[in-house]
């Protein structure tokens, strides 16, 4: 994957826009997972993913190691997302993460029964309650279906660290969502 990424990055640097679009197809979901894990806000996350890719495209030549595109993009997205959260805090805007906002977010989905919406709100609220490092791993894995190797590349941590964070995160979620997990 990383060799292919390196080839695509070099092609994009040389002006092949399709190569960069392939990178977008490959990593947009990952970037969205990271942005959402930091902001907890769907629309902001989508905007931040867009901005991150635009920034990455403009500064592609500065990427020191073309095989590390995923990790580089992840760090751009995370940095932008943290800035967004800080800006929101400065503006004293209530950050997403409250139960009501999650219900509202769930309400944007196609109509479904109230119980399912409530379950979703509870699960998302529980995920938001995880420590940031754990939350990022859980969202990357569950939103994107990423394996350990891809998560390692995106976050720049070891496979053992990914496994540990995932295990602990799932234990925490199991404690909070006990009844749902047992159903």
């Amino acid at each position: 994957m990383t060799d292919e990424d390196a080839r695509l990055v070099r092609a994009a640097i040389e002006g092949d826009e399709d190569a960069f679009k392939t990178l977008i197809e490959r990593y947009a979901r990952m970037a969205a997972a990271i942005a959402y894990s930091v902001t907890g806000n769907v629309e902001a996350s989508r905007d931040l993913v867009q901005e991150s890719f635009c920034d990455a495209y403009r500064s592609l030549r500065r990427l020191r190691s073309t095989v590390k595109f995923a990790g580089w993009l992840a760090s751009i997205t995370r940095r932008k997302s943290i800035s967004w959260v800080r800006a929101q805090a400065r503006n004293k805007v209530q950050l997403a993460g409250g139960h009501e906002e999650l219900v509202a977010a769930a309400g944007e989905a196609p109509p479904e029964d109230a119980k399912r919406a409530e379950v979703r709100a509870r699960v998302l609220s529980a995920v938001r309650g995880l420590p940031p490092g754990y939350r990022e791993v859980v969202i990357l894995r569950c939103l994107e279906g990423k394996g350990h190797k891809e998560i390692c590349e995106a976050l720049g941590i070891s496979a053992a660290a990914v496994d540990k964070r995932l295990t602990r995160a799932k234990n925490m979620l199991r404690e909070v969502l006990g009844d749902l997990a047992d159903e």
Partner: protein
Amino acid sequence: MGGEAFNPTDKIERLVHESLDGLHLTDGLVERVSAAIPPRTEMQPSLHPALRLGFGITAAAFAVSAWLVNLPRIYGAGTVASYVGLTAIMLGATIGSTAIAIAIFREAGARAFAAVRNALSGLAGNALVGTIAAAALLGTAYFLLGSFPADQIQAGLRAARSSAATLLFVLLAAAAVQIWILARGRDWRPALRLVEAAGLVVAAIACAANYAIYIA
């Protein structure tokens, strides 16, 4: 727990997956981001490689000409001629090795040309930085001494001569390896930057040692 990939039979993982999926976070995202990518003209670096190359060549030409006009006084016309010849040989070697690199990797087409361009751009950048550093040193000397220390500068130039040749060859070697590696589709540029940095350090040490010998 925590197998290699997403496990839909794990109740917790499935619950989180379904909940996140219901947010429609990534619906249409690829199309949206693709449409927002700026046109090619907007992604040029702040200083275009060609401009950097131009600056580098100009700076190098100034440095070389400043060096050459002093040489007859220092070394005599015969020595100057030999240095001009040496410079021509080195230029020929550079152009020749670049041509060989292009010929060897001509099947790589644009990739090889891009690699050559990047390598030359890197060399020009180094030349520019070196010239700026030299100008800064001279400026500092003038500020401290009230005049240009001609004897010291001449000694410095003599000291730098052999060091500069060493540095140039290290940089050329790094550039040649860079061309070869990039054309082969590998990316070891960080390692090559290390080689370049090591070359600079070696050249600086050699320069300082030579300088100490000349002024002793």
